């Protein structure tokens, strides 16, 4: 199921050299590519209120430290690690507790009988290939809206695992969560978006 994302080290090395030289196109490319992702991580750790500030600080720290970047991890992981460290420091300062249970809608218990069997019939989405689903602009807008209303920690896990193809270990490290918690968040995010598509199809 998991996609394999290969890192292009040559291009990344060139990109970093251009950044160090102060090339404006390289700066725009890097900020445009990673800003949303960094924000996603910061919001998952510290919440909406301080995330922008944390990410701005992370950018400044990263750019200043760029000449020392050794390329042991990808630029993406390195940026996310800096963001995560900044957000965790800020959490300690703000002493905010974040819950895993924000906004979780599981499969309703009334879909199963007392023995755990499904009561309703589940039909395959035969005609709706992902491409066909994507051609539907209304559905696309609904999915985007629902994605943005997911709890921040679910959005971050879904983005890093399903969309960015990052390893579970990296995600646990960045968000400072156990693998079982990350898996719970991932499953909740996927289930919620599955409900969204299912409801759209039913209406």
């Amino acid at each position, binding site marked *: 199921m998991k996609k394999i994302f290969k890192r292009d080290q040559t291009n990344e090395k060139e990109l970093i050299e251009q950044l160090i030289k102060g090339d404006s196109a390289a700066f725009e490319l890097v900020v445009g590519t990673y800003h949303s992702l960094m924000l996603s991580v910061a919001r998952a750790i510290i919440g909406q209120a301080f995330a922008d500030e944390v990410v701005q600080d992370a950018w*400044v720290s990263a750019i200043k430290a760029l000449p020392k970047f050794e390329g042991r991890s990808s630029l993406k992981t390195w940026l996310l690690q800096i963001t995560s460290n900044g957000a965790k420091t800020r959490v300690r300062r703000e002493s905010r507790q974040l819950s895993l249970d924000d906004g979780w809608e599981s499969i309703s218990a009334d879909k199963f009988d007392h023995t755990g069997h499904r009561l309703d019939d*589940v039909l*395959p*989405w035969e005609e709706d290939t992902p491409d066909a689903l994507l051609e539907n602009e209304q559905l696309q807008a609904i*999915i*985007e809206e629902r994605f943005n209303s997911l709890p921040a920690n679910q959005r971050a896990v879904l983005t890093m695992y399903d969309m960015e193809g990052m390893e579970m270990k990296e995600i646990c490290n960045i968000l400072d969560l156990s693998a079982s918690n990350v898996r719970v968040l991932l499953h909740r995010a996927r289930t919620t978006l599955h409900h969204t598509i299912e409801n759209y199809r039913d209406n």
Partner: protein
Amino acid sequence: MFQCKDVAEEASNYLDGDLPLKKRIGILLHLMICRCCRNYLQQIRKTIKTITNIYPKEQHNTDVKSLAEKLRNLPEN
């Protein structure tokens, strides 16, 4: 014996290959006899593929161009 509820709870872990062998076999056996759960897993698979293709991003009001310019002009840079 695994039930539909167990498959619903473990769907992500099953699809990602993150289940201990005993649970994996339990689910496989259930899938052999349950069309609803096979269809449910197919729907979750398509959901993941669809989200990956849509690639929704975090909403923000940051002006990426001016942030890039600000970073480029950092004193130490």
